[in-house]
Structures are given as C-alpha cells and as structure tokens.
C-alpha cells in the first residue's frame, strides 16, 4: 500500500473511532440524566430505562475498544486518551455485572455513569486520539500488564465507592425508621454493603499487582524500582488506604462508618493517582521544579 493510501485509511479509521466514542460518551451522559430523573421520581421504570441506555453504551464501547485494537495493532490503553476510555468502559461494565445482585437500586449507577461520561468527554475534549508509536520505555510486557490490571482495579474500586456512598446516604434514613429507600431495606442493606467490601477484596490483589508490576517495569526500564515520583507515590497512598480499609473491616468498632469513609478515601486517592497528581501542590502554590528523583 502506498503512503498516501495508508494515511487516508488511518485518518478515516480514526475519524470513525472518534465519532463512535462521541456516541458512547453521549450514551453515558444521557443515562446519567435519566438516573437523576430516577432519583427525583423514584420510579423503577425510569431506573430501568437508564440502565438500558447505559448497557447500550457499554456494548458499543466494547466494540469500539475492539475496533481500536485492530486499528492500532496493540492493546488499546497506552495513552491517556485510551486509558480514560478503557476506564470508562471497564467501570461501567463492572457495574453492570455487579448490579445484577441488587436490580432495583440505581443510585450507584448515577455515580458510575457520571464518572464514565466525565472520563470519556475529558478524553475527547482534552486529549489527542492519535495512535503513535510507543516511546521506548513503554514497550514492555510489564507496562502492558501493569496498565491492564491497574485499570481493572480502578474500575472495581470506583464501583465499590458508588455502592459504599449509596449505603452511607441511605443507611441513616433506614435507621431512622424508613422501611425502604431505592430498593434498600433494613434486611438487605448489609448484603448491599458487603458487595462494596467484596469488590475491594477483588481489587486489592490487582492493585498490589499493579504496584508490583509498576516497580518491576521501572526496574527494567530505568534501573530503579522506586523513585518516589508523584504518580508512584499516590499509587502507594491508594494501596495504603485500602490496606487500612481492609484492616478496619476486621476491627469490630471500626467496621461501621469508619471503614466506609476509608473506602471512599481510597477512591479519592485513586483518582489522584490517575489524574491529579500535582493538584495539591498547585492548590498550595508550591512550585514543581520537575525534580522528583530522590
């Protein structure tokens, strides 16, 4: 194939890719609006419609990721544009799988679709969709597995946070004598919350693997398994907060709200790792100096 033909083929594929992604992002955006309507009206039919729209978005999204894998000839999560897309897809998919256990409780879906729509639109608006050759340090098996599993753990953690947050909001109402809210009752709320715990139990070894493979990759590429750079450090903080959460679930007096808040803090730290590593420094007006090697 001539160079011109290759360039026009690639441009065509990428344009299709972008348009499909826009459709997916819109599906997430619209379904979050439907879930807001559900929270206002508390009509199960509205919740079901939101979930159907979200499911449509996820099916399309899985197809899109397969398409991009074909387009790029490699796993589709190696630039921030790609990893945001992968995060949105895996989080929504995880939610759909897990929510079969509590079919009529939709508030976690609002959180998940807002997150998915936010990640997708951010990728579309702020990042370039170009598929360029990977820079030499990124050409590593360790890096590939590192990203796949880190993002899988992120998905699981985000859904866990959605459930824990719903529990924290609904539980006080149930305690004050309300018989039912969003399909949750005094008798099923503990089971509902246990799903959040089980998700962390599932995600924690993945997070540990992500930390380990990140260190192994750094060791192969730069000759140092740990250099305290902010992204690395935030991933250690996230991991530590989930260690605290899992321990707190084994301490009777902390198993209540303390551990719930630790789970939510874990999610916040995960988002810091993912996106906002230098945000705190900026907020405090601390100069970066780009000098992080200790």
């Amino acid at each position: 194939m001539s160079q011109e033909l290759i360039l026009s083929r690639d441009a065509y594929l990428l344009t299709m890719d972008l348009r499909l992604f826009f459709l997916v992002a819109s599906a997430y955006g619209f379904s979050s609006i439907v879930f807001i309507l559900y929270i206002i009206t508390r009509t199960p039919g509205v919740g079901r419609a939101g979930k159907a729209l979200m499911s449509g978005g996820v099916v399309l999204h899985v197809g899109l990721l397969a398409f991009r894998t074909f387009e790029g000839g490699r796993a589709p999560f190696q630039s921030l544009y790609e990893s945001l897309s992968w995060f949105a897809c895996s989080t929504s998919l995880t939610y759909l799988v897990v929510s079969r256990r509590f079919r009529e409780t939709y508030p976690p879906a609002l959180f998940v679709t807002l997150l998915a729509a936010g990640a997708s639109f951010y990728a579309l608006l702020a990042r370039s969709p170009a598929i360029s050759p990977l820079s030499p340090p990124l050409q590593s098996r360790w890096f590939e597995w590192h990203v796949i599993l880190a993002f899988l753990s992120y998905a699981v953690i985000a859904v866990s946070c959605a459930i824990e947050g719903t529990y924290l909001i609904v539980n006080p109402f149930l305690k004050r004598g309300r018989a039912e809210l969003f399909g949750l009752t005094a008798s099923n709320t503990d089971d509902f919350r246990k799903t959040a715990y089980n998700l962390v139990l599932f995600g924690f070894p993945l997070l540990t693997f992500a930390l380990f493979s990140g260190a192994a990759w750094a060791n192969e590429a730069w000759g140092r398994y740990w250099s305290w750079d902010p992204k690395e450090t935030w991933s250690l903080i996230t991991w530590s907060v989930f260690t605290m959460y899992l321990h707190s679930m084994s301490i009777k007096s902390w198993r209540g709200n303390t551990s719930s808040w630790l789970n939510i803090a874990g999610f916040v730290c995960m988002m810091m790792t993912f996106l906002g590593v230098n945000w705190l420094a900026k907020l405090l007006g601390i100069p970066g100096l780009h000098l992080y090697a200790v």
Partner: protein
Amino acid sequence: MAGKHSNWLYRKLSSMRVSVYLVGVLSLLYSIGTIFPQGADMKEYTNAGGRFLGAVRFFNLLDVFNTPWFLIPASILFLNTLVCAYDRFLGLRARKKAFPGTFIPQMEIPLPLGKTEAEGAVSDILQKNLGFKRPKSGPPPSWTVVEKGLSYRWLTWLYHAGIAVCFAGFMLSGLFVREGVITLEPGRPEPVISASPEKTGWLVRKDHPPPPFEIVLDEFVTEYAESPGLEYPKDKLSRLAVWLGWKELSYKMGEEPLIAKDWFSKLRVIKNNRTEYEKTIEVNSPLKFEGYTFYQEAYEQTLKLKVRGEPGIIEAKTGERVEIPSMGAKLEFGTLRNGTVLRLAGASGRIKPFVSVDRVVQTPEGTDGKEPYGKLEAGGSITINGHELVLTGFKEASVLSYRYDPGVPVIWIAGSFVLVVMALRCFGAWYLLAYSIEERDGRMRLSLSIKTKGLYAEPQRIMRGLTRGLRALS
C-alpha cells in the same frame, strides 16, 4: 497471644489498630512527598517562589523520605509486622483453642436416622461428596468442626510474613545500593566508575573499589519509525464538528517525521582480559553481570565540523550552543539522525545521517532565541553568512546507568510470593462448618453453622449439597 502478654510494648506492636494508625501516618507523609519537590535544592526552591519555607527547612520537606519523621514510623511498621507475624504464628499453632465450644446455628435439618447413623452419614457426605477435611481428633465436643479449602488464616499469615520480608529487601537496598552513570565510546573499554557522584547506600564505604571488570561498547544504533502527525483541531468547537461528521481528520507527513523507536548498545563485559559476557541492550532489556545491572539511559553525539577554507576541526555537541567566530554565527544542532528507519509503507533502511541546524538570534526582549536554518547531511555543507560549514564526521557515545542492589532479588521473590498467596486468600474459597446432631422433640436434628472466606466461597452450595445428600439417604 497478644491478649495474654502483659508487656505493653508487645501488646501495641502486635495490634492491628496500631498498624492501621501507622499506615495512616505514613500515607500522610507520602502525600507531603508529592506536594514538595523531592530532591530539589533549598535555594532553587526559594527562587522558584517556594512557600512554607520555615517548615520546609525545619522538617527537611524537600527530602522527606530520608528524614527521621518518615524513617521512624516506617521502621515501627516493620517491627509491627514482624511482631504481628510472630504473635499470629503462636495463635495459629494453638489453633484449636480459637474455635468456640459452641456455635449459633444458622440452619436446622431434621434427620430420619438414629444418632450414630446420622453422625456417620453427615460425616460421609461432608467428606466424600463435599470435600471437607476429616475433623481433628480430640475429646468429642457437642459441635464437630470441619474445614474445606486452604486455611485462610495461614494464607493471611503467610502473605504478612512475605510483606515483612519485602520490608527487609527495602532495607537491604537502602543500606547497600550503588548507582551511577558511565559513558561509553565505541571500542574503548571502561571500568565501572561513575561519571557523576555515585549514589550509595548508608553502609557503603565512600572509597569502595570498582568491580573487577570493564565494559566495552561495540556499536550504538538508533532505530527510528516514520510517524505522521495528526491534524487534530485545537479548539473545542472544531473538535465537536469532527465528532458530528461535519469535518474530517487528516494525517500529514512533516518534514522530519522520525521518532525514535529504540536505542541499542552492543556491549561486552571484559574480565581478566577475556570477554566474559555479551549482550545488545535496549530500553527495558538491561545487561546483568555479577550483581550489577546496566541500563540504556541516554546517548551523546559530537559533531565534527569544518569551515571550508579554514584550518582545524570544530567539535560540537548536539543540543548545545556553539559560537563559530569565523562565520560570525552562533548555532545549535538538533539530534543527529543516524541509524535505521522503518518506513510507514513497510520498507526499512539506513538513514543518511543528518542534523538540523538552528541559528541563535536575539529576541526583541534581548534574550537568546533560535530560528531553524537548515539541514546538514554527513559529508554535506550549509552556507551561513557566505561561509560554508561542512559536517565531516561525528561520534556517538552510549550513556548507561548502572545499579548494584542486593535488595532487588529479595523483593522480587517475596513480592511474587505475597501476590500469589494474597490472590489465593482473596479469590479462593475457605469454609469452616460446625455441626451438631442432637435429639430434640423425639427427632434427630442437624444444626449447622457455616463461615466462609474468599470470593469464590458460596455457603449455599454447601447447604444444597448437604440437603441433597441427606435426601438421597432417606
């Protein structure tokens, strides 16, 4: 066990609460390390408009991971993990005591059999059909306790012990590490002596001798790929137009569409005047020899230039500015493109070496700026101010970083172990089933209590299997 120990310190060090507090304190310190630029110089930090100068100076916040504020809680957590592991080990050995004498029944099943037959039948179903282990012998209590799956207590203990070993690995790194940088020119053996000050662990003597071998670079090659640029609109509205189908994307081949795919250094290790080991290293594939690891870190390029009609050769490093008085110009040379290239259409070949030339000019603000001037090929020339500048040759050197770190294998082995065992604990299934068979209201009744750990555990499966087995009996 902790509860029986009267020693306050032992009780604290074997407490899970203390471990949670310590991990919390360390997390706060980690986050401080992400806020303040670690490794920066105090003066540099102040000049860049750094804030909280008093606290930064007092707590040494620009190097927080080497301060006692960090090292003390980290060491206590290490101790905490060790003492915990020891304490839980004692508990696990005396495990039978951990089972309560009685359980709260979660389910009751009437049995159409006599006591002895019922006991035999239930024990048979549990062991043969459902794979539970035989109950441990001892004085027959009213409740019989059987287990299935890998003991989660042992798994939890094992990976905590593994974490303690990882901590030991980090300490080994901190005490004995050595790392530095060497620059190799082709064909010239070099001892492993760092070009910049070596970073060493706390127990490494400053005058330690270099290792008894030398490294020689036989060849340094850069592999390029041809990479087109995407014309993606910058403003959000034009992007929207692309998404909605009103605008198309296009790729464009720039003037110099090369991006480096990899760097290769063909290395040999020479010991006692003999080649002991050879390897072509690249990023992500270092050379390992006698505890040392050598990584492809960077490269240095020196151009040999000549002004036609003038005597002498001018040597200029790429990326640095050079004044050439006889031409009345100050120039900066870009990366020398030399090596192989994979073309977009699939062909590959060697690049004719070339370098881009920028001219340093005065900006209206009076500072040095630069503007692109042209391309200079090996053997070719470029004319500046009426003078011809010729690229007569060049030298490429490979820059390797090296590291000697006895902590790495320890962390590697212990870390892999922790991962496997933790995965078994979290994803696997462990059941503790307690049952008692008693006669009440003239009928035999089986009372059951079941506890599970691990995501794969499903108590309903056990209950179903047991009822099915009992139904088959009757």
